């Protein structure tokens, strides 16, 4: 088992490195756009000071290039300009290239500097994760627990099974932004139910709020965003698990259990559930990258900070250091989640363990 885990980890590490390197090298082809977007817009004379004339804009772009080390060659080798004979010779740059500097920085925990804010990428990601993980983590736990409870009930074919399935299918078809806006317009609207706050995580300038008040305030602010995430995640999990449970309940061992006099709920809980969980484990593994990648729609609608907004804004502004950091992080979590799912499969189904 240890060997298996070691080799899987090694492969995962290699895949993460290849992914990040690919994104890094691809991003170097669009650096001019990235640098231009970090300068004032030529179509805007909004700022103070003299107009940034074209020649000055180019000089500023060149200076930015130098500040971020983008004037170095991209990789260890590059092809020079064509000689009079038409040959383009290869040049070796040693460690003085962007890729090497980036890898070295990464090894020392330096994930680079944002083109726009000038702040460290690692710090920005840490700050965003501090808001994202509680939001997405709570939503994921609640969604999984709700789906487990609901699927177990639905599998026993109660009278409300059909209408509930219809509701779940309908909700499953709704985009997240619709669910989030409906919740907002129903529960934070003076014209309907003026119950919950609309945005943020609580106000910063309450007069010396106690910890309990702050917690209650934060809890209230998280009700709608978490609900939106849970409502959109539960149908998929529930429908899948219900189908898997119903299939298991039709097998011979489930019939035997019922023949022994066990209640339908007990058959589900003690016999069918573990076997039906395998596809759900894969679904939950899919959730894990979303835990760190954030939920950009919910973050925008409820004005919450987090990874989703950070990465979406970095993407729009071509802030490649932040974007590469985000890809590295979510990519790593995705690959680790797949590894985790494989390990969970081994735990859940002894047949897989024996075969491997």
């Amino acid at each position, binding site marked *: 088992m240890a060997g298996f885990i070691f080799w899987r980890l090694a492969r995962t590490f290699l895949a993460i490195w290849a992914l990040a390197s690919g994104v890094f090298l691809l991003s170097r082809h669009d650096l001019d*756009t990235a640098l*231009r*977007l970090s*300068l*004032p*817009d*030529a*179509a*805007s*004379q*909004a*700022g*103070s*000071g*003299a*107009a*940034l*004339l*074209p020649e*000055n*804009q*180019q000089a*500023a*772009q060149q200076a930015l290039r*130098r*500040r971020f080390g983008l004037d170095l060659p991209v990789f260890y080798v590059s092809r020079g300009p064509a000689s009079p004979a038409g040959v383009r010779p290869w040049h070796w740059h040693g460690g003085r290239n962007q890729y090497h500097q980036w890898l070295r920085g990464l090894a020392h925990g330096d994930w680079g500097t944002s083109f*726009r*804010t*000038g*702040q460290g990428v690692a710090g*920005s990601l840490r700050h965003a994760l501090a808001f994202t993980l509680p939001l997405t983590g709570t939503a994921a736990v609640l969604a999984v627990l709700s789906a487990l409870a609901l699927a177990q009930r639905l599998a026993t074919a109660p009278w409300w099974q059909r209408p509930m399935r219809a509701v779940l299918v309908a909700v499953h078809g709704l985009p997240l932004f619709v669910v989030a*806006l409906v919740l*907002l*317009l129903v529960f934070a*609207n*003076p014209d309907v139910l*003026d*119950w*919950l*706050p*609309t*945005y*943020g995580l609580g*106000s*910063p*300038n*309450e007069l010396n709020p106690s910890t309990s*008040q702050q917690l*209650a305030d934060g*809890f*209230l602010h998280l009700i709608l965003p978490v609900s939106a995430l849970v409502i959109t995640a539960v149908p998929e999990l529930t429908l899948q698990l219900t189908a898997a449970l119903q299939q298991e309940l039709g097998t011979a061992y489930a019939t035997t259990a019922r023949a022994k006099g066990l209640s339908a709920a007990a058959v589900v809980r003690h016999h069918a559930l573990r076997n039906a969980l395998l596809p759900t484990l894969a679904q939950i593994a899919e959730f894990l990258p979303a835990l760190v990648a954030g939920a950009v729609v919910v973050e*925008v*609608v409820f*004005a*919450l*900070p987090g990874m989703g*907004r*950070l990465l979406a804004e970095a993407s*729009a502004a*071509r802030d490649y250091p932040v974007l590469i950091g985000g890809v590295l992080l979510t990519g790593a979590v995705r690959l680790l989640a797949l590894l985790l799912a494989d390990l969970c499969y081994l735990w859940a189904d002894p047949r897989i363990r024996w075969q491997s």
Partner: protein
Amino acid sequence: MLVPKKNPSGVLLWLIFSSLLACSCSSKGSSHEAIRIRWVHDPETINPMALTNQAAIEVNNLLHLSLIQANLTNHQYVPALAAALPEVRLVGDSLMHITYELRPVAAWDDGRPILGSDVAFTVKLMFCPGLPNEVVRNQYHFIKAVITDPATPRRFTIVCRGQAPEYVKATGDFCILPAATLDPAGRLSRFTLAELQHRAPTAPADTALQALARQYQQGYAGHPPGQLPGCGPYELVTWEKDRFLHLRRKSHWWADQLHPAPLMLRAKPQQLEYVIIPDVATAILALRRGELDVFPQMPAREFERLRTAPATRAALQFYTTDSYNVVTAGFNTSRPVLADAATRRALSRCFDAGRLMKATQLGAGQRTVGFISPSDTANYNRALALIPFDPIQAAALLRQGGWRRAAAPTAGWFRPGPAGTSQQLRLTMRYRAGDPLLTTIALQFQAATAPLDIPVSLLPTEAGSFSEVLRVGDFDMYAQVLKGNPFMFNFTPFLHSKGIGVGNFTRFTTPASDRLIEAIATASSNASRQRLLRQFQALMQQEMPMVPLFFLPSRTVADKRLSGLNVGSLKPGYLATTIVRAARATPAP
């Protein structure tokens, strides 16, 4: 009221939920002392050397002060740190001396007076290596020296290379920073401005400058609350990225000694809280629930809906002003089919600016003949006629441009091209994807040209890619909003031949227009500039590299309990420092 009776856990949950709701209801409304203002985006940085967006400029104007400031209400520059507007002296034909004198009461928070040496230090910081000053360094490259006089330390002269009216405003419009706080060791004083300006980028790093840059960067990177040095009326309390930025009024601010205090040097709110709410629907609900006080730049439909609904009309106050943002459509004049002015003028007749204004701004805004706002009565060319929506005239102008309309099956407009080729008038129009204003303009143009047999393909383009395709010229036409102000009349970035491949997306250039743009930028008097600007508007209407459609209005909505909110056409469209929240009425015993 329904209360679960049998299940104890249900009762507990119900109690928790009820108490939280009660807490929610009690915290709602204007229990805050701070005036809460909506921002769409985070400032990203508050470093005065690297201001990237409007929010950053706005917060810097509260933390710091410049020598002169634009007055929101009358659009004139007025003294801020300076005691009066500067004295300007032209020296020969290549130098300009701009002399300022600082207010005697102007002082830093520690009581030290603000002196000319602080201004000289700030200018040197703009050129100090190791700082993120790439933009300001290139904006203020025209400053040759700052001459201070130990005998009159509040008086100083900024020497400019070249002579241009915009230098007067530019030299007074940057945040002044304290030399003694940011550079207590006086490292920068060992260098002259010329040495810093002419320092080669590849020069070996100077340890003193490196230490200064590191110290400066650390101060702004960590943005410790209350520790950012500035002579503005507010200090930073908290800045949570993508959440809020909280400012507190300084208890002792130097301008409190001015009686009467000029409008731009008043600071009434004790606390200002800028909250970042990207979504319009969320921000409107927050405004209605009393979780937000000021909503600037509200979209037209939402503004109108709130203004006409009885409940919100009673609770909110509504302001509309003109802005200096003009909606334009541009032509790629390097494309053979759009190279001649007649074709461009013909196509300009296919934009129905009046109806577009009605459709997108519900009738608000101002039609215009050019890039100068009609509000700027001194410079606006009223002799020119507005560009009409007239497809028949468009067809006639196309014929003047050598185009001939072919009947079906090859319906369209054709004209002979070079070397026996044939050109067909077929266009692609790009605009920023997801922008309803620009989408409406593109759709209206497409609908107007369809009966004329001019095929127009619409290409909504992602924001980042949009700027790149404009720069490389991968378009026939584009729609865009140009953001301006009433002070800068330098059209070089987007209409001069120097700007081709940088900001002149139309690639329009003629020797006459280049000369006129240069003459406007260096005009020595208001009268001559007015004359040149009118000529320029006439030339642009003749050549039509861009079609100016209309100037957008600026709409602000605020809680009715606020008073003293001054709105204006200058960005950000309101003056936060004069807002007062009326005391809440105490219930009668």
